[in-house]
């Protein structure tokens, strides 16, 4: 089987995004019964915008199904890294590989803004997430299942404008989940929510991640959120991964436990010392 690698070479970039042979489709359907996370290997990844060297060589391996959190000060390139993983921007140098052929539906991103279509009802918004399967006969059923997963089955016929911020974000999560992705990337998805809604969304994220087993990459500026959810917290500084901290606490985790608080403190001090140096 062909190995999909996102690299600076244009042909392979295309291969991972656009060339989906009928053969690949069959493969996908066979394993969709037990969708599992994909491993992720990043080697020497670089990205600049003009003179601004944002990522200066990221090397990283994420095992399948791991929950990774990425923290770092504002503007350090977290979103840039996420966009490269999701294939939304072009890589300057280096590579990102998933170890096997991937479909666009295998990787989903969730942003800080829900990005729902205001003119589509909640259910139709979730159906958007099916990608090329949107037109298939079971689209409704699959979207409804995803809505049940995020606890919004009763809102299926509402317009997005009547939902609260947290509910909108849950619809966006349903849309991201409906295609059973194998990698789910979150770019501060809870950043705009109030404290209580955040905590219930964090629980929801953890639950769907445990149920579905996708590889989760969460960018957040909230270190306590990172240690509460992730198996591993990465700190990005000056375009590189400066710290790689494992969180070994068992699940379900006790928020505010001494163990997590200690980890949170040490990660925060990393971040702050980097700030003092600049």
């Amino acid at each position: 089987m062909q190995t999909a690698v996102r690299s600076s070479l244009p042909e392979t970039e295309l291969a991972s995004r656009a060339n989906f042979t009928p053969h690949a489709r069959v493969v996908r359907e066979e394993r969709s019964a037990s969708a599992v996370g994909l491993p992720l290997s990043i080697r020497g990844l670089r990205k600049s915008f003009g003179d601004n060297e944002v990522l200066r060589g990221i090397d990283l391996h994420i095992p399948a199904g791991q929950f990774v959190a990425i923290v770092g000060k504002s503007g350090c390139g977290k979103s840039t890294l996420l966009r490269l993983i999701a294939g939304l921007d072009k890589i300057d140098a280096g590579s990102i590989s998933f170890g096997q052929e991937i479909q666009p539906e295998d990787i989903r991103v969730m942003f800080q803004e829900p990005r729902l279509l205001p003119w589509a009802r909640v259910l139709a918004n979730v159906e958007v997430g099916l990608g090329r399967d949107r037109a298939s006969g079971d689209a409704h059923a699959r979207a409804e299942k995803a809505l049940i997963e995020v606890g919004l089955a009763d809102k299926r016929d509402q317009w997005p404008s009547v939902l609260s911020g947290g509910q909108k974000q849950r619809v966006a999560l349903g849309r991201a989940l409906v295609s059973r992705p194998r990698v789910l990337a979150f770019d501060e998805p809870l950043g705009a929510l109030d404290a209580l809604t955040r905590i219930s969304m964090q629980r929801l994220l953890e639950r769907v991640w445990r149920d579905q087993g996708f590889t989760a990459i969460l960018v957040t500026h909230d270190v306590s959120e990172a240690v509460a959810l992730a198996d591993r917290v990465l700190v990005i500084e000056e375009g590189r991964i400066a710290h790689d901290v494992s969180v070994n606490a068992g699940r379900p985790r006790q928020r505010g436990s001494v163990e997590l608080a200690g980890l949170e403190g040490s990660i925060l001090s990393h971040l702050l010392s980097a700030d003092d140096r600049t």
Partner: protein
Amino acid sequence: MSLIDSIPLPRSVRLPRVDGLIQWIVPLAIIAIWQVASVTGFVPTRVLPAPSDVVLAGWKLLLSGELVRNIWVSFWRASIGFLIGGSIGFAFGLANGLSQLSAKLTDTTLQMVRNVPHLALIPLVILWFGIDESAKLFLVALGVFFPIYLNTLHGIRTVDPQLIEMGRIYGMTDGELFRRVIFPGALPSIFVGIRFALGIMWLTLIVAETIAASSGLGYMAMQAREFMLIDVVVLSILIYALLGKLADSASRVLERLTLSWHPAFQKR
């Protein structure tokens, strides 16, 4: 027609039943006062005929069939001109909103033409077409073109780029992206264009029919002026107002149906 018009009232102001009646209080009061003023001789009938005289004139013209024929002719000119100008404006708006190349090629030219008041072309248009139907259709189409063009273009250009990116991430083809994201996103702005265009449509038609026509409401008014039939003149003006109001209401209904997702149009 103004921008203020197109900003829907907040929900609390809209009382479902009473609302329909309230808007007629002022026009009815004006008519009542007018009638009294005419009957008492406060306003000489040579200046302004009583509403009852206007209604009577309308009744006579209705019986002779002249009224219906002229209204029909004007209505036909307005709709055909609107359809022609509107669809060309819409097409250019789409093309220039979606394609950089097309925008570079035509937008500057169109912006220059826009600065020519289309009614200033009347002498030229009469030279070209005479007082033929095509002269009126041309003027209406030209007048309608710009508001539709500009608002379609603006609507498409201001669709939330984050939504477009979302559509691409979720694998929408260009056609799907247009149908599901770009067009619905541009629709509120397109409606603003349609409502401006409707106003311009009537204005253009009145002027064109008054100056160069041998049928239609404007022509009927001009004929009546020659014979000093002031009641018919006032009748024509009122009918124009009524038709304008009708067109505006029709576009509002359409707006309400297609924009039911918009928070401003959700009735509870």
